[in-house]
C-alpha cells in the first residue's frame, strides 16, 4: 500500500506518521511537499499534525491554499481515503472537506496528555478494526481543539453517524468532565458524508508501539490497511 504524507513547512508529526506506516507497518510512504502536486497511485493521504504555517492567523487557515490541496480535494472527491490528524483535521475544516471550525481550548492553553475516546461509528474505513463503543486511549496535543459547528450541521452529523469519536471517561461515559477542550457534543473526530475523509484531534501515531506503552492507535491504521486491501481486491475482481 502506498500512503502519501503531506508536508507543510510547519508540519511536525510528518516524520511520526512516516515512521508508523513505514517502519512499524511496513507500507510504502511518499512524503509530499505542500507546493507539489499530489502524486498518482496513492492508496491514502495523511495530513499530519503540526503548525502548518505557524498557525498564526487560525490553525490551518493558510495551509488550505497550498497547491497540494487541489490534488487532495480531487483525490477525496474520487473516494480516496484522507486522514487528517490534529492540525490535519484543522486544515480539512478550513479547506471545507469537513464541516465546522476549531475554537481555542476551553482552558485556553495547549494540552498534551492521554485521553479516552469512544468509537461511535465502527463502520468507517478508519475504524472497521474496532468494535462499536470501544474505548481507546490516545494522546491529544493541541491548543485549538474545541470543535464547533452550527446546530443544523451538528444535527446532520449526528443523524448520519458522522461523529466517529467522542471524548469519554475510561468507562466510556461521555460528558463535560471527560471533555478536554470544550468540544461541541464531545466531538474528537468526524467523517464526511461519504465516509472517506476523517479528521481527528487525538494522535493515533503516538500510540502504535509497545515500546511507547500503548498500541490503541494501531487500530486506526489497521482499519485503513484493511480497507485498502479490500479496495484493491475489489478493483482486481472488477478487472481494473
Amino acid at each position, binding site marked *: 500500500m502506498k500512503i502519501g504524507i503531506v508536508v507543510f513547512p510547519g508540519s511536525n508529526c510528518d516524520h511520526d506518521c512516516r515512521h508508523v506506516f513505514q517502519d512499524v507497518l511496513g507500507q510504502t510512504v511518499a512524503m509530499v511537499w505542500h507546493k507539489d502536486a499530489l502524486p498518482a497511485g496513492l492508496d491514502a493521504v495523511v495530513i499530519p499534525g503540526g503548525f502548518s504555517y505557524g498557525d498564526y492567523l487560525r490553525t490551518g487557515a493558510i495551509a488550505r491554499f497550498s497547491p497540494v490541496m487541489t490534488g487532495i480535494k480531487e483525490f477525496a472527491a474520487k473516494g480516496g481515503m484522507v486522514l487528517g490528524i490534529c492540525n490535519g483535521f484543522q486544515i480539512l475544516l478550513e479547506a471545507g472537506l469537513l464541516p465546522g*471550525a476549531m475554537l481555542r481550548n476551553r482552558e485556553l492553553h495547549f494540552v498534551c496528555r492521554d485521553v479516552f475516546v469512544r468509537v461511535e461509528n465502527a463502520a468507517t474505513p478508519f475504524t472497521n478494526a474496532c468494535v462499536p463503543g470501544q474505548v481507546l486511549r490516545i494522546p491529544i496535543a493541541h491548543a485549538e481543539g474545541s470543535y*464547533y459547528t452550527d446546530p443544523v450541521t451538528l444535527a446532520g452529523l449526528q443523524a448520519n453517524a458522522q461523529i466517529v469519536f467522542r471524548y469519554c471517561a475510561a468507562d466510556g461515559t461521555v460528558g463535560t468532565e471527560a471533555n478536554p477542550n*470544550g468540544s461541541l457534543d464531545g466531538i474528537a473526530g468526524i467523517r464526511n458524508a461519504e465516509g472517506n475523509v476523517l479528521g481527528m484531534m487525538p494522535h493515533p501515531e503516538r500510540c502504535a508501539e509497545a515500546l511507547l506503552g500503548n498500541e490503541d492507535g494501531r487500530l486506526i491504521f489497521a482499519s485503513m490497511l484493511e480497507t485498502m486491501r479490500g479496495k484493491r481486491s475489489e478493483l482486481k475482481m472488477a478487472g481494473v
Partner: protein
Amino acid sequence: MKAKVHVTLKQGILDPQGKAIEHALQSLGFQSASNVRVGKYMELDLNETDRAKAEALLKQMCEKLLANTVIEEYRYELS
C-alpha cells in the same frame, strides 16, 4: 490606502478568552467590567487608489483568509 480589519467571534459563540479576561479584570478589582469579548485587529496598506476596488479586495481577503465565517464575522474601514 490604509485598511483596518476587525474580526470577532459571532454572537452566541462562547469566547473563553473573553471570559478569562473578564475574570482576571474582576479579580483585579475592576468589578464594573463585564461582557468582555476578544477579537483580532489587523492593519494593512493597500496599494490602490480606487476606493471601490479597494473595498472589493478587502472583502475578498476577509472572506478567503482573514476570517473564518463559520465562527467569525468581520468589518473593515478604509482611510
